[in-house]
């Protein structure tokens, strides 16, 4: 059986034109998806059932036992951390927020190590953005700054920018200009009309210089700014102002380097300034397929997109203090529930060392690096393959992710709802 118009649960592009061939409740072929999406659809090697650490080995346990363990762990903890959430559906994220509120824990999603700084910047200056289709249909200038879509969002160029024909651009390849700004010559830089190479850590200064140039203050700009010649800066600024519609996409090249959110803020303020001359938008290249969804869910339920501390009953937000890396590196939490992410692979060493010190429960379909630190791991269905739910694309468009096979695994929402119900029972006594 071929299932059409399937939504890909890998990256923030959330391509919804994938065709999946299913035989005997197994995915056997995938069309239209990129390498990343295809490998996810074809993934096997699931963890067969819940496991519990037993000395230096592992033993199989039932779902009931695993859930009981997780509930007790959360009820005992004085400062539990509930982390992950970006690779699961919105319905599960909602239960997660309710649970964090009830156990008075810290809840954070992978945003904090991805576009958390972008959100901090947006909270200072706002965000002139648009949906991807607006760019596809209108943009004659695309800037990719500190991002490498060919590797991280492989179909971004063909669906929305470089190679995508749109309503007002009949021949995208000819009619659009693509500028890539990065510290190294990435694959994406190779398909750009202009590549701007910046010295590492120099993004902020280059953005400031561009803002000054767009404001007409070119006289103080030196011969070279962080490795970029003045002439190139003037040319880029001119191209931006002359564009009918410019779209600025940025990635972790500016969120992770020094200055962090200030780089993003500077980019947004450049775009604000350009809007006085033409139409310009800016957007983050969000990584996990539903990381934006975790921000949306957290925001409507708590008021904040990530890094929320419920210790005192109310929602307190202060990234840098209430974010997962900081809580773990400072050894502030005494238990950790991990849902749909792998911090042991993706967090700096001191954070992982603390995971080794405290009880950890992971809800994830696969054995991964974090499994090594789990007291209990509970395998679940993979949203988009054997579970359905809501996900938000990188531009905020929500889509319903389909279930294409029946595996028998419970979904994240089911496991979390069972945990929540048990916690509610204890707390209401």
């Amino acid at each position, binding site marked *: 059986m071929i299932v059409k118009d399937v939504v890909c649960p890998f990256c923030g592009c959330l391509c919804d034109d994938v065709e999946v061939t299913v035989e005997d409740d197994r995915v056997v072929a995938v069309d239209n998806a990129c390498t990343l999406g295809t490998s996810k659809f074809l993934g096997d090697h699931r963890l067969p059932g819940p496991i519990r650490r037993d000395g230096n080995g592992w033993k199989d346990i039932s779902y009931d036992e695993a859930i009981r363990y997780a509930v007790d762990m959360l009820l005992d903890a004085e400062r539990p951390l509930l982390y992950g959430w970006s690779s699961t559906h919105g319905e599960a994220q909602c239960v997660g927020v309710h649970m964090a509120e009830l156990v008075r824990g810290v809840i954070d999603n992978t945003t904090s190590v991805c576009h958390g700084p972008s959100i901090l910047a947006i909270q200072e200056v706002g965000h002139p953005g648009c949906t991807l289709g607006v760019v596809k249909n209108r943009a004659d200038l695309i800037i990719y700054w500190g991002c490498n879509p060919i590797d991280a969002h492989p179909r971004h160029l063909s669906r929305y920018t470089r190679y995508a024909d749109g309503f007002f651009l009949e021949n995208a390849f000819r009619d659009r200009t693509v500028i890539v700004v990065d510290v190294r010559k990435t694959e994406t830089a190779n398909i750009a009309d202009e590549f701007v190479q910046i010295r590492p*850590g*120099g993004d902020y200064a280059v953005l400031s210089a561009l803002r000054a140039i767009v404001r007409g203050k070119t006289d103080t700009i030196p011969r070279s700014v*962080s490795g970029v010649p003045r002439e190139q800066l003037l040319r880029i600024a001119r191209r931006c102002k002359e564009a009918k519609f410019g779209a600025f996409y940025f990635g972790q090249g500016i969120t992770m380097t020094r200055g962090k959110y*200030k780089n993003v*803020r*500077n980019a947004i303020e450049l775009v604000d300034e350009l809007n006085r001359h033409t139409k310009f938008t800016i957007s983050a290249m969000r990584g996990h397929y539903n990381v934006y969804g975790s921000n949306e869910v957290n925001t409507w339920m708590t008021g904040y997109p990530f890094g929320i501390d*419920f*210790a005192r009953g109310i929602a307190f937000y*202060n990234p840098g203090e209430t974010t997962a890396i900081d809580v773990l590196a*400072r050894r502030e939490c005494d238990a950790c529930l991990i849902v749909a992410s792998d911090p042991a692979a993706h967090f700096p060493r001191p954070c992982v060392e603390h995971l080794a010190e405290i009880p950890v429960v992971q809800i994830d379909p696969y054995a991964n690096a974090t499994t090594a630190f789990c007291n209990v791991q509970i395998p679940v269905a993979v949203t988009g393959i054997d579970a359905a739910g809501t996900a938000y694309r990188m531009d905020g468009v929500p889509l319903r992710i389909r279930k294409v096979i029946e595996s028998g695994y419970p979904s994240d929402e089911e496991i979390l709802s069972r945990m929540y119900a048990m916690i509610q029972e204890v707390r209401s006594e």
Partner: protein
Amino acid sequence: MRVTLTVRPREKPFLPIEAETIVPRNFLDGTDTTVWRGNRELPLDAVFSVSVEGNAETAAEVEVVMRGDTALIKRVGEYMDAGRIVVEGDIGMHCGNFMSGGTIEIGGNADGWLGREMRGGSIICRGDAADYCASGYRGDKKGMTGGVVEVFGSVGDFAAEHLAGGTVIVHGSAGDMAGAEMHGGTLIIYGDCTRPCANMTGGTAFVHGTAYDMLPTFRRVGTIRREGRTFIQFTGDIANRGKGNLFVGDCRYMD
């Protein structure tokens, strides 16, 4: 009146304590108050051994002395309006948030957000202060608006971010982006720093040492003499509607 709070040993020493109740005014009614360890509310004397000497009619007559391992006690002196807090060692995050009067003296180091959104009064830190010393809060335009924060050691990144009024003095060096977005007040750094006053629109900053990775969007207007030293004077940030003044002993660009 002097209230001495000595931290007791804790079973999970890394769990932070939130103690916004430790404000001189609160002790006029006695020491029957609570603090929080993670999600548990505890009586003050479960975390500290408490001793009180003398009496006080007003908050201004109350001195709180904190001893022992106070490095993870957060929010001490929040909304303080009068009196004095003396921390003999290190202090946790958010010490002196929103304070409007009185004095906090810290013998050791201060963690992040020392004197965040301060309105008045003074904070003296003998050691180093971490990131966001005398800064604002996420999303809010106005940071500190009054009072004085003086740090004898060095400060971390984003010191005096969104500074709108008052004075911040750093005797050591500052990290990256001190005075970012500042639009009022005075920032004085006796040591070095990187990228000072990014995107500033007002206020005055002095860097006695060297400003590394100076931003290219500050306009050099000349030199001045002050306290027996020569400073290069800049206005900026012209990436913005820069009406700020930045004076640096020396600077280096990243070209």
